[in-house]
């Protein structure tokens, strides 16, 4: 039996922590017939931004990373962060994993580790205590807290003033009007008591933005597995993992929505005109991105089109 050491950097109650510590750990043991066992460390030996390095250096065997925490090192992975992609995390995660295998893996951006699966949390929404932002004009000069690179860029192109601050300050930022609103997924409700403050959520079809995550494994540890163990691991990684991780995020979002609705908050669908404004704003972002990754020899624009097509196909099923 091989014991795989796993850690995570999300807070103890976060659904990704629960996933890695319980649900996926049990799945690994069950599907491998006891060949593989997960040991989830009670304290991660490194923080979020150091996790990629930590897995590469062997501090733990397996962990997950958010590519946005190492901006500049991962560029192709931005593909899953664009606005208006998918309404739920399961669809986007699975489609992303498929496109990653088809076109992005060759670029070897995860050099030094084995990328076991790509996934994303639920779509990001535009949340605010006072104003419901239903068009681009209403966003001009508004201070928005943006969690990552894509949300930041989107806020900028929409004419808002983005602010980069840690999630732990969200309550204070919103409470005092230090920021006017924030880009967040629905799973935040319940965690920081934000449901006490947020009165308006604007949802765009496919989300305002998303974030790219990967489950990664130490290369030496992977190579040291027997063929049988590798086969067992394959059963619980790749698309399988993307699906359960996505589903866990969707369930966390559903819990968040329930808490939010019980508090009496309003949910607005972005009007068609606003969606068109977003679409117009992001096409230069897409072009810039495709140009910035030309050196990888990957046809980024085609991969993004492929991702959209994959999502559409899955939605139709």
């Amino acid at each position, binding site marked *: 039996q091989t014991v795989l050491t796993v850690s995570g950097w999300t807070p103890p109650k976060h659904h990704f922590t629960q996933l890695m510590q319980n649900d996926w750990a049990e799945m690994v043991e069950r599907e491998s017939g006891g060949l593989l066992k997960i040991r989830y460390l009670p304290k991660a030996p490194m923080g979020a931004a150091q996790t990629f390095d930590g897995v590469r250096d062997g501090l733990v065997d397996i962990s997950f990373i958010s590519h946005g925490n*190492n*901006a*500049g090192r991962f560029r192709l992975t931005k593909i899953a962060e664009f606005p208006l992609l998918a309404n739920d995390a399961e669809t986007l995660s699975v489609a992303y994993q498929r496109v990653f295998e088809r076109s992005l893996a060759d670029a070897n951006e995860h050099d030094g580790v084995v990328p076991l699966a790509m996934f994303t949390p639920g779509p990001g929404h535009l949340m605010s205590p006072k104003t419901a932002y239903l068009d681009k004009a209403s966003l001009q*000069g508004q*201070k928005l807290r943006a969690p990552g690179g894509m949300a930041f860029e989107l806020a900028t192109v929409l004419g808002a003033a*983005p602010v*980069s601050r840690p999630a732990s300050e969200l309550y204070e930022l919103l409470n005092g009007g230090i920021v006017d609103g924030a880009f967040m997924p629905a799973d935040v409700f319940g965690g920081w008591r934000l449901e006490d403050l947020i009165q308006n959520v604007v949802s765009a079809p496919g989300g305002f933005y998303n974030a790219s995550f990967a489950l990664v494994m130490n290369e030496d540890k992977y190579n040291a597995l027997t063929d049988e163990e590798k086969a067992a691991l394959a059963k619980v990684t790749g698309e399988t993992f993307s699906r359960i991780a996505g589903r866990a995020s969707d369930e966390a979002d559903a819990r968040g929505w329930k808490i939010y609705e019980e508090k009496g908050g309003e949910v607005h669908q972005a009007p068609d005109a606003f969606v068109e404004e977003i679409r117009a704003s992001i096409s230069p972002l897409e072009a810039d991105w495709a140009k910035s990754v030309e050196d990888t020899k990957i046809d980024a624009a085609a991969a993004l089109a492929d991702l959209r097509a994959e999502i559409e196909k899955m939605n139709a099923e």
Partner: protein
Amino acid sequence: MQALEYAAALILAGIMLLTVVDVGARYAFQRPIAAGFEVTEMAMQVMIYLCIAVAVASNDHIRVTLIDPVLKRVSWLKRTIDGVSGVAIAMALAGMGIAMIGLAAGKSGEVTLVLGLPVAAVAWTIALTLILSAALAAYAVVAGPTDDEAEDD
């Protein structure tokens, strides 16, 4: 040594002023400093290692002094423990400095979210400060106890 102290103090003053300006700007002009968070964090990362270098150079370590009354009577033992700890501190700092160079090398290409500043620059600065601290710690061992400590004996 004085230069380190003043550099750290200046960075601390900078962090303080940046907070004031940030709060003031968004209050008065509705314009927050988008990169305030990442600049503060980078400044902080560098500042604490300057502070540590200062503490190391002046042999300023938090110790538990419960058995000092006993040790005062066995002064060779106290000198030995302090000497060994001093050497261990110098070695630990040097080792951390070398490990930090490795970390810095791996950070090439990584940039901050808003300004796109190179993250490796911070790691390199920390590495250099750690190696300087190791030298200062080694010097503190060679130079023996400072006047302050000598008074205790």
